[in-house]
Structure formats: C-alpha cells, structure tokens
C-alpha cells in the first residue's frame, strides 16, 4: 500500500525532520510508528497523505506517486485515505455530526447513509449525546475521538492516525483500538503514530521506531 524510498524532509533553517527513510507497508497491515517527541512521526504521516512534500525521495501510495498527482486524481486518492491529525483539524463552529459528515460529503454519499454512519460511529466511541454539540465545546479527549471518527467514516482504504489515545483513559483507549481493529479487519491499512506502549504491545504488528528522523528499529509486537 505504501512504498517510501530514501525519503527526506528538511525544514527551512536546516532542521532535518526525516532523513533517508525507506519503508514498505503492505495492504491490510496495521503498522505502528513510535519515537520520542520530535522524532518525525507526524512528518512521516503528513508526507504519506501529501500534506507535505518530501525534499528528496519517492513516495507511492496504492501504486501512485502521490507527489505527481494533481486535481481530481489527488482528490479521489485522498477520499480513500482517512487521517486523524494530531491537532484534530476539527471545525470548531460546527457540530460533531457535521464534522464527521464532511469526510463522506466530499464523495457525494447519500445523506441518509451519512446520518446512519455518523450515529453508528458515535455509538462506538461513546459520543452519542454529543451529536449536536459544537466541537469547540468538547474536551480534548472527546475532540480526539471525533477526529478519529471522521478519519474512518468514509471507509477509507488507508487510515493514518496520529496519537489517537493521548488524552484518553484506559477504557476509552480500548474502544478506540477496537474501532481501528475492526476497520483493519475490514481490509483497511492502518498506520498509527503513538507514544502509548499499551496499544502497540498488544499484538504482533510491526513497530517502527524513529529517532531524530532516522529509522532506529523495526520490530514486532511481543504478544503471540
């Protein structure tokens, strides 16, 4: 699903966020990205969804060189990629339901289907009573779940999640991981950037640790 070959990203006053990262993630895989703060996890995810362009190297997603895509093709590929941003990127003056619906509206889904899907997701993330609340009035943990719900809403083929459990208690974290696991079982490729070892130690998924923009290690989860 994702091929990265010798990808580097530097920011203006010679900050190297990523250097020479080569990586291949298979379709249907659940992949964890760990590392200290500032290691380059978010940068890597932004490169994959073409929010940032690499300074060097090649990135292919679903067979497309994502930096060569433009206009309609890029839009259509992005509809197939769900991203839960570290800073959420919610529209604070819109309701929870509207925020989640946006991801489906851009691919012109039927309004009934959208309403149905929104209720279903809110149920899974214990946010049913927040349906009509403005996201600006939510707690950070709640906002985080809304961002996650939006990323999976359109049933994308690839889901990129940045710190999905940073503000959540253990029980809610469990629910979030259930949701992601379900999407993964349904065929989606998932990349999760996290500090939370309770979530990546649970399975035998591949775990890549970044350190100062370099790949430090590539291991598997200990369970099983």
């Amino acid at each position, binding site marked *: 699903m994702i091929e990265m070959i010798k990808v580097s990203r530097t920011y203006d006053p010679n900050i190297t966020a990523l250097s020479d990262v080569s990586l291949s993630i298979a379709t249907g895989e659940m992949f964890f990205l760990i590392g200290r703060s500032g290691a380059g996890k978010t940068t890597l995810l932004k490169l994959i969804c073409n929010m940032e362009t690499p300074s060097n190297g090649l990135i292919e997603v679903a067979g497309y060189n994502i930096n060569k895509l433009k206009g309609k093709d890029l*839009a259509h590929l992005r509809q197939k990629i769900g991203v839960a941003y570290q800073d959420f*990127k919610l529209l604070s003056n819109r309701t929870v339901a509207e925020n989640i619906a946006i991801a489906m509206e851009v691919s*012109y889904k039927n309004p009934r289907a959208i309403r149905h899907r929104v209720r279903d997701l809110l149920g899974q993330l214990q946010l049913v009573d927040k349906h009509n609340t403005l996201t600006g009035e939510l707690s950070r943990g709640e906002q985080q779940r809304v961002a996650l719900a939006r990323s999976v809403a359109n049933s994308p083929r690839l889901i990129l999640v940045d710190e999905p459990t940073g503000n959540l208690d253990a029980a809610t974290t469990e629910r979030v991981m259930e949701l992601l696991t379900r999407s993964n079982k349904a065929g989606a490729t998932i990349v999760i950037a996290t500090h939370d070892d309770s979530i990546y130690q649970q399975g035998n998924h591949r775990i890549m640790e970044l350190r100062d923009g370099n790949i430090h290690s590539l291991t598997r989860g200990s369970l099983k």
Partner: protein
Amino acid sequence: MNFWFAVFRQTGRNLHQTWTSQLMTFLTVSLSVLIFAFFYLIYTNMLGAGDRLSDDLRLIVYLEDEPGPQMQEQLRRKIQNFDDVEEIHFISKEEAYQRFAKQLGENSDVLQDIPTDFLPASIEVVPLKSLRGYNQIKLFSEYLANLPGTEKVQYGQEWVERFYYFTRLLTIVVLLSGTLLILTATFMVAYTIRLTIMGRQDELELLKLVGATNSYIRAPFLIEGILQGFMGSIIGLSALYGLFQWITAHFTGPGLLTLFQFTFFPPSVILLIIMSSICLCSIGSYTSIRKFLRI
C-alpha cells in the same frame, strides 16, 4: 449521492452562514439594475419618440419666386445632389394660399381682401429615414438654404435641437449608470465572496485534505454569484415594472406621455439585462475564487 446535490447543500450552508452580507450584496445589485434599467427605459422611449418625430420631419424651403417647370427640375436635381430624398413637393403661392385658407376654416373670410399670392412659394422636402441625427439635418438645411433663390429653411430647428441635446444627455446618463451597474455588481459580489472565503479558510483547507475536488469547492461560490445576479436583476426589473405601471396609471391622458407612447422593455431586452447581470456577478465571483481560493 450526486455531485449537484452536494454542491447545492454546500451553497445553502454558505448562504445561511453569511446571509447578512449576502442580503446587502443582493440589495446593491437590485438597486443598480433598477437605476440602470430606469434610465435605459427612458432612453429607449426617447429614441422611439425621436423615430416617430423624424418620421414627420420635413424641411420647408421658402423661395423668393415661383419657380417655372424648368427651374423646378433644376432645383430637384440640386437637392438630390446632396442626398437622395424621400419626397419633394413644390408648393406654389396659390397652393400655399389654399392650404392656409383651409387651416383657417370658418374664419377664412378674413382672407377675402388679401391677394392670393401673398404667401411665398416653397419646396417641401421629406428627407430619407436614414438621414437622422441633428447634425445631418442641420447640414442638409444649410445646403438647402444656399440654393439659389431660397429665402430660408424651416424644420422646427429649436425643437429638434432641444430634443437632440436631451437624448445626448440621456446617452451619457445611461452609460454612467451602466458603468455603475457593472462596477457594483462585480465588485460587491467579488467582495462578499472574498469575505466568505477569508472567513472559512480552515474549512476550505480541510475540504482539500479530505479529498474534495476543486469543482466541489468552487461550484458553490460560482452558484452564489449566479444567484446574486439572477435574483438581483429580477427584483430590480420587477421594481422598475411596478414603477412603470404606477407612472402610466397616474399620468395617462393627453400630453407628453401619449406622444411618447411609453412602453416597457420587450422580452428580449429583459432577458438581455438578466443575462448580463448574471454574467457580471459570475465574473465577480470567479475573480474572487481565482484570487483567494488557492487550490
């Protein structure tokens, strides 16, 4: 669901969110359409009246002497040298006398002691319909006045002159109000759409990130412009029609208006005004989209 449904839903949200500035724009567009159409209506009616007047226009050339048949032929040729004319009538002193007596009707007995040749002979020239415009008529009359044996030329100079200057003034007013229409419609629409775009940068940014196509992002703004142009011109023209009805209802009867035969725009002109209003507003919204919607 299909593209257009999604786009119209998005347009509805835009209108809902920024309805105050939308209303202001809408009123401005209506008002400028009203002002322009008002002057244009007067202008077209003046032109119509002018046409009718110039249908009746004839130049009377008073002659010093009664021309003989050979002289008549010479004069006729001279006149046609300047330009083809519709008609040339020679009116002898006798004929002039008869006409005058007829005009006097019952009072014609006052003429009893007056010799029948006291009125001068004249030529009545009906110029071609193509010979329009004050300057051409004036040139023609000067030419006629310089023909040998003519005394003077009359065609209601003062009236024609005043009418001509009034039409020219109206032309300027129509051009000015037309410019006003173009400026306000395009600028106001561009401005409101700019406001909307600026106020919602983060939403537009997000739409791009979740994979909205450019047309999905752009179309609602374009539709907004088209709606403004359409609604604005409809309301402006309706207001003018109301005004027109009121004027014709209150000022009918003999007088100026019957001469002018005040008429409203034909459907083709109405359609043209609506179309150009839509065009202008779309151009306004399109320039804002180009400038501020970086996608």
